[in-house]
């Protein structure tokens, strides 16, 4: 494991942990967030018969960097009637909540920021931390649009937390672990062993598990869309109704932090889906390192597969955003409480019965 190796290398556990914790931020989150924004713009352009950003750098690749540089130079406005401490704190809370989740993601068999036994639980907990930030941002601005955005956002995230957790719990019943690294390790060999295909279970039970596991994944995916405020659940930011929702009053870098956090969150929820249902860092078909006999290649491949699968799910989220209209707030609640939650419960019971076999 890299954290232990780093600790040994520096002769100090603390420094090792520090570097291990900081690695994902600088090596993955920031480049990812920058290029996710770029990808979103290119994806939308592709879907809408446009060209998309193409001026800054080759094919517009440096567009988001230019945007961030621009936003850094913008004036940081705190409205006179705002609740200043809350207003300033909100972006920190949201950004920290998103980033803290990354520290527990298993990027590869040898790299995980912190290999805790409660991985899944921890990530779900910290990523819903952003609710607090959103509520702070919405309340602090003393703006009605912000307040509505925040209220809707909280109601939405909080509601969809229930089906999401239920979907995970039903998967965990079969998996029997909350440690993300362990879960990834279980789904070894080839994609047939991913949990969405019944996992490394033998016999008839595996085939029985495919349908409930797929349902669990779909429920979790829909709920995770809602948790990261993506279309069709983007009512907190519904630009045609609430202008910009909870971050209406934010300018410059503070606004950029919300933006980065949103894209970071998109990856976090995708990473949970990948780890639990799609084999985590496991390759779908053997490792090149194994067949070539180069052992150090395997972890690199694992990182690739993890990021690849995660990005693919992020891409699906973008695809949905540019295809679907958004729901109304009551419809949103109906979807959650009248459909997803009961289905998740039924699914749970179903998996419970299957485990008896």
């Amino acid at each position, binding site marked *: 494991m890299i954290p232990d190796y780093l600790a040994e290398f520096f002769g100090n556990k603390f420094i090792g942990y520090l570097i291990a914790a900081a690695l994902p931020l600088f090596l993955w989150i920031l480049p990812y967030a920058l290029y996710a924004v770029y990808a979103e713009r290119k994806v939308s352009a592709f879907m*809408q018969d446009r060209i998309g950003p193409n001026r800054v750098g080759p094919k517009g690749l440096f567009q988001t960097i230019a945007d961030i540089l621009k936003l850094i130079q913008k004036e940081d406005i705190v409205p006179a009637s705002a609740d200043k401490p809350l207003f300033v704190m909100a972006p920190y809370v949201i950004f920290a909540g998103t980033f803290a989740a990354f520290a527990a993601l298993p990027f590869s068999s040898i790299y995980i920021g912190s290999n805790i036994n409660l991985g899944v639980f921890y990530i779900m907990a910290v990523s819903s931390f952003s609710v607090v930030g959103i509520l702070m941002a919405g309340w602090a601005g003393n703006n009605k649009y912000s307040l509505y955005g925040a209220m809707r956002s909280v109601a939405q995230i909080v509601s969809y937390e229930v089906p999401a957790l239920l979907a995970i719990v039903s998967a965990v019943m079969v998996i029997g672990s909350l440690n993300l690294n362990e879960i990834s390790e279980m789904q070894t060999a080839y994609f047939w062993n991913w949990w969405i295909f019944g996992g490394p279970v033998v016999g008839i039970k595996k085939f029985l598990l495919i349908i409930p596991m797929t349902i669990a994944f779909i429920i979790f995916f829909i709920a995770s869309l809602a948790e990261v405020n993506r279309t069709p659940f983007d009512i907190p930011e519904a*630009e045609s109704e609430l202008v910009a929702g909870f971050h209406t009053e934010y300018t410059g870098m503070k606004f950029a932090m919300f933006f980065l956090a949103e894209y970071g969150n998109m990856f976090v929820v995708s990473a949970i889906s990948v780890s639990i249902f799609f084999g985590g860092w496991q390759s779908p078909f053997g490792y090149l390192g194994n067949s070539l006999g180069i052992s150090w290649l395997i972890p690199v491949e694992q990182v690739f597969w993890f990021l690849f699968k995660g990005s693919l799910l992020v891409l699906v989220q973008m695809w949905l955003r540019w295809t679907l*209209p*958004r*729901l*109304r707030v009551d419809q949103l609640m109906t979807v959650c409480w009248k459909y997803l939650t009961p289905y998740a419960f039924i699914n749970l019971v179903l998996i419970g019965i299957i485990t008896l076999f």
Partner: protein
Amino acid sequence: MNTPNEQSQYKSKILETLLTKATDVVIEDTLENGMVLNMGPQHPATHGVLRLLINIDGETVIGCVPELGYLHRGYEKIAENSTYHEFIPHTDRLDYLAPLSNNTAFALAVEKLAGVEIPKRAKYIRMIISEMARIASHLVAIGTMAMDVGALTVLLWSFREREKLQDIMDLLTGARFTTSYTRIGGVASDWTPQCTAMLKDFLEHFDENLDEMERLLNTNRIFLERTEGIGVISAEQAIAMGLTGPNLRATGIDYDVRRVFPYLDYENIDFNVITYTEGDSLARYWVRCDEMRESAKILRQCLEKMPDGDILAHDPKNVLPKKFDVYTKMEELIHDFMLVNFGLNPPVGEVYFSVENPKGELGFYIVSDGTGHPWRLKIRSPSFVNLQSLPLLIKGHMVSDIVAIIGSIDPVMGEADK
């Protein structure tokens, strides 16, 4: 309205209307439970500078007061101080999504006043441009409505189609947006074979592209849920509110000026008047979609039937002479001088003429005192009248429905504020 005191009085009056008269829904809580939200004039969903003061309880709208006038330019007054020809460019800026249609409407009204009979070719060109304007305007209407409920892609797709029409307009009139294309007694420039080719090319792919656009929405459960049963208005209410155009036809009344009071050559054209009976946002959307297909049908017939001939009537007292003749012939020069400086010579009297614009019935009521300027010019703009129904439609719905309803009414503030 000038002193701060009066302003604040005015404001409090609005508030009072909101909190007392406009709230037919009784708030059972004795304490004040609502919140007054300003939607517009600077808001992404109000299609321009419409301002809505809405009284909301949670997400439910209790009352709504639309406020107009942020784009008021006093066109009716400007008209009184300009000749009939001078006013044509102003009509571009009424419904700026369909300027060609407005040009046509105004020219027809003045021609009716002055008794000018225009050549048949000009009539067909005017029909073609009116229908092109209708398609262009409806494309924006369904695009923005879809955008308001959150489906951004449809907007871009509809603008792609619209762009093809704008290219034709550019070629025909020299401008994409502010066309000022019609003249009293005809049109400014002739319809060329290149225009025909481009329009045919557009029409060839239009149906299929429209189907593609509709596929994104028509079977989309979310879109249907967001618009079905939202902003329902009955036929009686719609008539009482003075709704016209697609908004009226969505309630099941087949009132179409083109069919009821045919102008130009519409009586010789085969087209259907689209009606739906639901009267909700979805029906208004469907009426627009189907109307575009009908417009395409009209365009095909017009291209087929278009005769050769002059594009301007021969009426020296009322119609501007050709530029070449002005430079070479004495009589034309004098007529041109008189027409430009003093305007044409309509008889004393009054006239009302209305056409079916994309947004509804656009009418010009002109009172003439025999001089070159109208004594009074009243514009019956459909957007203004349609917006009347907004409080009725919105009441009782949710904040998110407001945008769907405004999108389905499809107001253009340039027209509503005149």
